[in-house]
């Protein structure tokens, strides 16, 4: 396959970036998207040019490191798929592919396609946990969890924190990410003591970090590689509303 790539190149956080075109002649349909970029980078290195920086780690769709907007689509055209698990067979010979980093004030570009997603860590630190004394694992049957809650909590827990929801949201909101964590912990018995304060604290942090507000457009769910349901956001809203009305506080 012969492809024309238009890739966002930006040397540093302060530098002014631009789209740069590259032509690749020998792309195999069985390559993953990141392998294709590896091939491009090898060529660039041989030519003595600066290779394209992009984040990646596990390359098996579970770490959430990789992520780029491909032709206006976070993680590319295939649903429920991270960029590393996307294969070149989804593109045609002669295609032009636009590759851009996530765009959000809270995710500043570090270099080329690499963005700083520590804002997600800040949101997790503000309540995405349960406070228990660690030790040996408790007996599994000591705390019963009904099947539906266990399944829904697990679905929410599959969030890998890749940031595609923010990238796709017309409001630059991280609601789906925050909602996934609030849903995951809020549905389980272990998460109950901090349920309300978790919701308001995580939301307050998200607002503070300059993420936008949710307008229930649903773009986040469409691009989410894990298919986190849009209704998770209703769970977050529900807990926030309850906490707001009752004045829940954590100190």
């Amino acid at each position: 396959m012969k492809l024309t790539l238009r890739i966002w190149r930006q040397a540093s956080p302060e530098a002014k970036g631009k789209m740069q075109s590259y032509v690749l002649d020998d792309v195999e349909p069985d390559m993953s998207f990141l392998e294709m970029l590896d091939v491009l980078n090898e060529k660039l290195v041989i030519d003595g040019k600066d290779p394209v920086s992009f984040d990646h780690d596990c390359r098996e769709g579970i770490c959430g490191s990789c992520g780029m907007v491909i032709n206006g689509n976070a993680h590319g055209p295939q649903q429920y798929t991270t960029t590393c698990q996307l294969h070149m067979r989804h593109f045609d010979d002669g295609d032009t592919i636009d590759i851009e980093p996530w765009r959000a004030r809270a995710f500043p570009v570090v270099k080329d396609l690499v963005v700083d997603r520590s804002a997600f860590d800040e949101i997790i630190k503000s309540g995405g946990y349960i406070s228990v004394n660690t030790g040996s694992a408790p007996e599994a049957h000591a705390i019963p969890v009904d099947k539906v809650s266990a399944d829904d909590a697990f679905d929410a827990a599959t969030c890998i924190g890749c940031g595609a929801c923010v990238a796709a949201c017309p409001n630059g909101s991280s609601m789906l990410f925050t909602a996934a964590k609030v849903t995951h912990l809020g549905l389980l018995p272990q998460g109950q003591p901090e349920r309300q304060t978790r919701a308001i604290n995580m939301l307050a942090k998200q607002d503070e970090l300059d993420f936008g507000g949710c307008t229930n457009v649903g773009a986040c769910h469409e691009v989410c590689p894990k298919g986190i349901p849009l209704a998770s956001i209703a769970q977050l809203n529900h807990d926030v509303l309850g906490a707001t009305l009752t004045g829940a506080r954590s100190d």
Partner: protein
Amino acid sequence: MVITPQRNIVSRTWGTSVGKKTVIATTGAVFLLYVIAHMLGNLKVFFGIESFDAYAQHLREIGEAIFGYEGVLWILRVVLLASLVLHMWAAFSLWYKAKRARPVGYQHRQRWEGSYAARTMRWGGVIIFLFLVWHILDLTTGTVNPLGGDESAYMKLVASFDRWYVALFYVLAVVALGFHIRHGLWSAIQTFGANSALKQNALKTFAFVVAAAITIGFAIVPLSVMFGLVR
């Protein structure tokens, strides 16, 4: 890490994006109930001038013994105006926040941008507001009505919609209102936390049906005047 929450319920609500959305949803519910009653009232135009004008008069006399002439109407107007201010204030504040959240846009247009209704909530709302101003000047105060303010409500309505461009403007405005309700109603239910993965499609269908019924219920009046069914 502990963030000290705001203690006062007003600042607790207004201080978060979800709180502001709750304000938009609540005031939106006030508008929705009002708009449904308004639409049902409008349909009295099909029962003739006496029925319609008697209804308009009755609105001024409801609860007169307690609230005085036009008392209930003025209470309603104040509630609606307060709701409008809150609705728009919260929406503009979130609009600004969303603009701030993405200082650098994408080169390639985003492929999935949501439904037309969801994408046009903000500008659609602005258009509905501009229509509202015209609508009050036309049919409430009569300032821009060919007959002026003191005529019978029925006559003012017919005189106004006899101008095809006014009727068309009205129809376009209620279509915009329909789109606003279609996304707004389901979105409000989601904001109140009543959505679930199983209910989502049903809620969206419900919002669509309500929006379609309201749009048709409103649009049928100017269309009937335009085509001479109501004289």
